[in-house]
């Protein structure tokens, strides 16, 4: 393809009026075509990074795949031009696109764990595309891979390629995938949410590695994410997308510091919620003393003691595997602890769920991370919430219906949703219904297990506001499990930091999140991306310990 290269003023990638469509199959309706991307245009100079940002359904991944002339399952590119070095790749045909994919344009997906073949060594997979395209000999490609492993900060770059995917951590796998994309010396790399599935402390390392690699290799990149603060660290330009249309397109400085569109301003100012910490935290609704627990013979919790102030919020924070969700399972009785006791309102709870009374069960409700799996897909919203009303209060018929509609009002959805199925709701609406189901029991304490981590930032904000409002109205207590320090800062009254099954820190927010810090809390606090250009460099310079993923 090199002979087709035009003079230097042609940008590396130019997308003109791109339109992408698909067939929609709404339940109960005839299938009909819909437009996913409605005429998007942008240009990318070589060596630059363009961030595509938007909430789910904005069409950012779909647009991101267009430089590969690829439409994911059932999606077709219906109009516009994608010019790579002045050549429209949409008109190249099968052989032409095959010559581009994996050689000139490469792709890094969100879940590296699902993208690597577990049966082959990492090194072989990293150089596979390069060899297939005949760009290098095997020994050259291997040397290139080792060089890239070094640039990306992977341990023992010489022998890293000898490992299998299950032998390395998630963050390392994501970097190995970046090495795979860089191996063929492509002109353009598409990063599709490369750090979204990682813990904050790991995300920062991967982000730094990606940034270094882009700088050192001089490749251009499209960086797709829903997190504006992340993209602000790596991109030169940012395009904000919503519902398949461009909302705003400009330099990073412009977007972050002086956005024009209201939607962009909302994104920049997301999590402006502030909940002042309650002064008196002496009331105790839930008390856990010296809790140890294990899955089978593997111990996961070690001597954890904490309590939830009445009518207030305890945030439990930590990365995946820190035991924070296990603590919730112990509190609810799903996992009886091996040692320690749980007291609710001063009353000792039996360790196992089946021995607890209905009244005890009612007072303690749980909201799950994935609202999709937390609701029976075969039941309507009315049935999901109504069952709880019938179960605890014995309401039937119109009394039950009225109570459900009242709850639907409280979550700001209204009775129009009574007969809807979960599949017909958006992610945020599903989580609201889950909240209504918890409220239906008229609980004293709700354990929220990462209820917002699967949601877009603005939707998540709405959920948090709703939870805080309900807390004020009904004197609810919350245990809020999260890996996101920003949420903790926003809503918590007291904070517990967990690390590898142990309680690292516990106390009122003002004390727990104030120096002097232990090393882990310091790392955790510093790893949360801030909506600030240059934040990444500052943090890397000031860190005391490196993350567990290394």
């Amino acid at each position, binding site marked *: 393809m090199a002979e087709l290269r035009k003079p230097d003023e042609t940008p590396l990638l130019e997308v003109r009026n791109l339109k992408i469509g698909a067939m929609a*199959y709404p*339940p109960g309706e005839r299938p009909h075509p819909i437009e996913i991307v409605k005429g998007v245009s942008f240009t990318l100079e070589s060596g630059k990074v363009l961030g595509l940002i938007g909430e789910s359904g904005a069409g950012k991944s779909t647009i991101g795949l267009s430089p590969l002339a690829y439409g994911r399952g059932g999606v077709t590119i219906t109009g516009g031009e994608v010019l790579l070095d002045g050549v429209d790749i949409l008109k190249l045909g099968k052989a032409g696109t095959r010559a581009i994919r994996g050689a000139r344009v490469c792709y890094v997906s969100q879940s590296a764990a699902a993208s690597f073949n577990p049966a082959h060594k990492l090194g072989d997979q990293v150089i596979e595309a390069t060899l297939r395209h005949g760009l290098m000999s095997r020994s050259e490609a291997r040397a290139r891979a080792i060089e890239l492993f070094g640039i990306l900060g992977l341990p023992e770059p010489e022998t890293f390629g000898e490992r299998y995917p299950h032998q390395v951590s998630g963050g390392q796998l994501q970097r190995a995938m970046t090495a795979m994309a860089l191996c063929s010396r492509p002109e353009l790399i598409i990063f599709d949410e490369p750090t979204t599935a990682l813990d904050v402390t790991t995300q920062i390392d991967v982000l730094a590695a990606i940034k270094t690699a882009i700088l050192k290799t001089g490749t251009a990149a499209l960086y797709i994410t829903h997190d504006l603060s992340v993209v602000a660290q790596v991109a030169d330009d940012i395009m904000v997308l919503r519902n398949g249309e461009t909302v705003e397109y400009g330099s990073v400085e412009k977007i972050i510091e002086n956005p024009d569109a209201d939607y962009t301003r909302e994104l920049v100012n997301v999590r402006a919620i502030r909940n002042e910490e309650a002064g008196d935290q002496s009331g105790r609704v839930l008390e856990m003393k010296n809790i140890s627990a294990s899955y089978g013979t593997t111990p996961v919790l070690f001597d954890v003691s904490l309590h939830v102030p009445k009518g207030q919020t305890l945030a439990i924070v930590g990365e995946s595997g820190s035991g924070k969700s296990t603590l919730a399972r112990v509190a*609810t*009785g*799903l996992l009886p602890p091996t040692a320690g006791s749980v007291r609710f309102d001063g009353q000792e709870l039996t360790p196992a*769920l089946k021995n*607890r009374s*209905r009244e005890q*069960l009612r007072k303690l*409700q*749980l909201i*799950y991370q*994935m609202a999709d*799996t*937390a*609701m*029976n*897909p*075969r*039941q309507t919203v009315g049935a999901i919430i109504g*069952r*709880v009303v019938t*179960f*605890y209060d014995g309401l039937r018929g119109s009394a039950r219906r009225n109570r459900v509609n009242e709850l639907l009002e409280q979550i700001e959805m209204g009775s129009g949703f009574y007969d809807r*199925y979960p*599949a*017909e709701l958006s992610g945020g609406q599903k989580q609201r219904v889950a909240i209504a*189901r918890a409220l239906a*029991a008229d609980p004293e304490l709700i354990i929220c297990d990462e209820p917002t981590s699967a949601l877009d930032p603005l939707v998540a904000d709405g959920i948090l506001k709703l939870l805080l409002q309900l807390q004020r109205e009904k004197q609810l207590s919350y245990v809020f499990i999260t890996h996101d320090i920003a949420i903790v800062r926003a809503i918590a009254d007291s904070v517990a930091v967990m690390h590898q099954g142990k309680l690292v820190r516990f106390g009122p927010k003002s004390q727990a999140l104030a120096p002097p810090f232990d090393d882990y809390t310091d790392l955790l606090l510093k790893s949360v991306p801030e909506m600030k250009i240059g934040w990444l460099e500052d943090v890397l310079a000031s860190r005391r310990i490196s993350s567990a993923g290394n």
Partner: protein
Amino acid sequence: MNIRSVSPTAWIGMTGIAIAVIAAAFAPWLAPYGENEVVGAPWEAASHAFPLGLDNLGRDLLSRMIYGARMTLFVSFCATVLSFSLGVVLSFVAAVTRGVVDMGLSRLNDLMMSIPTLIFALIVLAALPQNLAVLIGVMAVLDSTRVFRLGRALAGDIAVMDFVEAARLRGEKTLWIVFREILPNAMTPLVAEFGLRLAFAVLFISTLSFLGLGIQPPTADWGGMVKDNKDGIIFGISAALVPGAAIAVLTISINLVVDWLLNRTSSLKGGRGG
């Protein structure tokens, strides 16, 4: 249910099933001759009076086909419904309660499955009094082992979903979880399996009748009719093929309808119906 959403193949299947059901329901009125009425010479060729010819004893084949639909459909349908009730309830309870109950039921099921079905059926039917209830019961119990396997796997997957855990946290009883939370979500594969099992039941009752342990002569049923007429094949007489073809057509018809039902139910879940 929208009439227009029924696919053409489903129409074909429904027609096939409808013909068999109508034949079974109105047999005395539809059949031109009596079930056991000898009307001519053995294996007399098809003619205007006897559209399908006569069987090995000189009985009208068409009339016996119509009466046979009755017995074949009734027995296989009853056996399948019974085997599903048994298999689904036991397997779901096993998957939800886990522990000793699960272990006991699953190993008992393995034990039953390790004995070849046909031989097991032959021995049991030879030992027990020969009547319809016993026949249906034996077929159902043997078939329920397969349903148990499927149900256990399905319920095992669904029982670990968050909404089942939520029901458990609420304090729901096992039977509520089985019938209200898990069963509706297992319906799609179960309905598919039902169609398949119904087809197998038709084949199984036919096999048993063919071997002489199923429906006893002179009552007509399709499998028994193949047996009665099998010797004719040597002489180039196709009488045995007619009930054979009927079994095949009914089996295919059931599966066409099941395929369509599957698409319909999966689109409810937000999945894509083809």
